[in-house]
């Protein structure tokens, strides 16, 4: 008695919302195919599919610089946070560490507390240390924040890791590090990969931290900030703006599309495990 009504409703909703999810981005992509500098009012289909505007926006808008900055920051944060999260998650999830529950709750604070509650002192302290307008200003705070999620995530994995393997390795005289490196990490690859993708996503899309720390010149602007800056200077040139938007969104979307199956699956299991 599943009923055709149920089926029809389900698919209608799914299709409708899929369309709603895609249409805005589709419009922007089409908009970016208009010649640059055209004063657009509203949407119209481009006369031809061409990527000239993309090339122009890329050059005029220094998007190469912005993407590079984003890459440097994202890779550094993800690498650092992964290593530290694995270590912390291991300690909290697989070892009999003293105060492990209290420490875990403390890490969770970073997940809930809004970034706005930290950014003001972070800015002024970094300024005094001469660290504003450097990549460190973007990497270090995001590293700290990523640890909340990362530790939580890896701890959940280690908690449910098979104990027999660990015990067996232990009985062979392996040190804790060896157990981690040779036994658990290979098992954790999917969980670690999902975490890395998620951290990459958060870090790449960050805007507020970049706006506060590195906005005084193009040298360290990350992609979202660069796009906002580009908009401030070329807001009447909708096709170029649209092209810039696509350029900025593309890297994460590509990573997402390649890994989405695993990524979503990993996310869902994580949601309900923790």
């Amino acid at each position, binding site marked *: 008695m599943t009923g055709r009504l149920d089926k029809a409703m389900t698919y209608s909703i799914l299709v409708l919302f899929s369309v709603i999810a895609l249409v805005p981005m589709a419009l922007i992509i089409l908009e970016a195919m208009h010649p640059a500098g055209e*004063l657009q009012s509203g949407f119209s289909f481009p006369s031809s599919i061409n990527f000239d505007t993309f090339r122009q926006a890329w050059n005029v808008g220094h998007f190469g610089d912005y993407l590079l900055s984003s890459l*440097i920051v994202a*890779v*550094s944060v993800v*690498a*650092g946070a992964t*290593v530290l999260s694995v270590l912390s998650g291991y300690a909290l999830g697989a070892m009999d560490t003293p105060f492990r529950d209290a420490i875990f709750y403390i890490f969770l604070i970073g997940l809930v507390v809004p970034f706005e509650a930290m950014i003001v002192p972070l*800015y002024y302290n970094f*300024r005094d240390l*001469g660290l*504003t*307008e*450097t*990549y*460190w200003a973007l*990497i270090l705070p995001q590293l700290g924040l990523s640890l909340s999620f990362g530790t939580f995530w890896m701890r959940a994995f280690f908690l449910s890791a098979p104990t027999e393997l660990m015990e067996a390795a232990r009985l*062979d*005289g*392996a*040190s804790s*590090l*060896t157990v981690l*490196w*040779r036994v658990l990490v290979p098992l954790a690859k999917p969980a670690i990969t999902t975490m890395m993708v998620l951290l990459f996503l958060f870090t790449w899309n960050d805007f507020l931290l970049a706006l*506060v720390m590195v*906005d*005084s*010149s*193009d*040298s*360290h602007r990350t992609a979202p900030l660069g796009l906002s*800056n580009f908009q*401030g*200077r070329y*807001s*009447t040139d909708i096709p170029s703006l649209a092209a810039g938007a696509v350029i900025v969104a593309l890297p994460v979307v590509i990573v997402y599309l390649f890994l989405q199956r695993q990524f979503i699956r990993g996310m869902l299991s994580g949601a309900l495990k923790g």
Partner: protein
Amino acid sequence: MDHDKRSERRGVRWLLVVAAALVALVAATSAQGKSTKASADPVTLKVFDANNDPGPNAEQIELIKRFEAANPGVTIKRTSVPFNNFLNTVKLNLSSSDAPDVSDGNQGPQIDGALVKGKLITPLTDYAKKFGWNKLWTPTTLAPNTFSADGTQFGTGTLWGVSSRAEIVGVYYNKTKLKALGMGVPKTFADFEKILAASKAKGQPPFMIGNLDKYPGGHYMMTLADHYSSPAALRNWVFGRKGATFDTPAVRKAAAKLQQWAKAGYFENSFNSVKDSDAQARFAKGEGLFVISGPWVNGGFATGLKDNVGFFLLPPEVAGGPTKATGSVSLPIHISSKSKNPEMAAKFLNYLTTAEAANIILQKGDLPARPLTNPKVDPKSSIASIVAAWRKTSQSPNLVPYMDWPTPTMFDTLMGGVQSLMAGQKSPEDFTKSVQDDWAKYHKG
């Protein structure tokens, strides 16, 4: 077991290698990011400005090019941002370790006052003497760029910034459209309102404005306040003098008039959702009859409309009466107290005040701060009218400084209030009261 130990060491070693590589990568790119502070020759000057409109932007590019050509060995690295961003970041920039050598500021406690208090900019007294800036301009003209040494008294004391341009707010008009209405440049305020009504009757809202950025509407309010009120009283209020108030019947009348215009549909449709730069671009392409703004928009207008754009100050109540207007020298340009090349920075500042620079500014359709003896402008052009208006008003008591200067929060209070006023969301009384409340809170005692 040996196997374990070895692979463990290998694992740790890999970790260290990766970590080291990351650190090296970040350090290398950080170093690249920082500006190269050269020793003797050559010199790099970092310049930060808010010249985002097409005219001023083109001027700055040209001026920098010429200065670099005239001073071999000097490279200028320029960063420019839109005005709203500028207000958010200028103080942060000047207080960072990577501060620019030369930076725009903004008159009043919000920006300049804070910069002086924080000792982030160099007093220009000696340079003014050396380069003769004191002789170029009168104390009244320079007053907005002054602050007491402790940064508390605005409009008096030490000179902290030099302006390259001047500003006077008036009405730009599309000549063809005005003629099509069968009307000429109005001589009285009543004539002006007749034109507004006529344009609207023809189905065209007379004012082309985009107020999403909040400040364009402010110019309309200021112009009307000048018209109805006393310039001396407003001037006192702007400079924070005791007993001054914004909440007077005259100013309330001005606010009511603005609201009435908005209600009558005199402003471009959905103007609160349109960006200033969009509205400017549309006017330059021939849309709209009037824009009330300052010389910074003229470059773009002149490029788009050529001889078809004109300029006049808002006419007085009675023909031949005093024409009052908002205006001042433009954003003050400062030398950072952290600059390693203050002498060269001062030289650049001075260059911006020379006759050559003034001419470049003029050619790009903008108004230079330097008093001009024989400006080479086409008498039919809008810039000619702007220059004449500045000449007439800048030394007269009818010039009123900008009303968003008096307190650190006044920009948002005034401009946001104008948005609400124009949308009919706030009464004129509530508007003037909220502005005065802001002023009183800051100037208490």
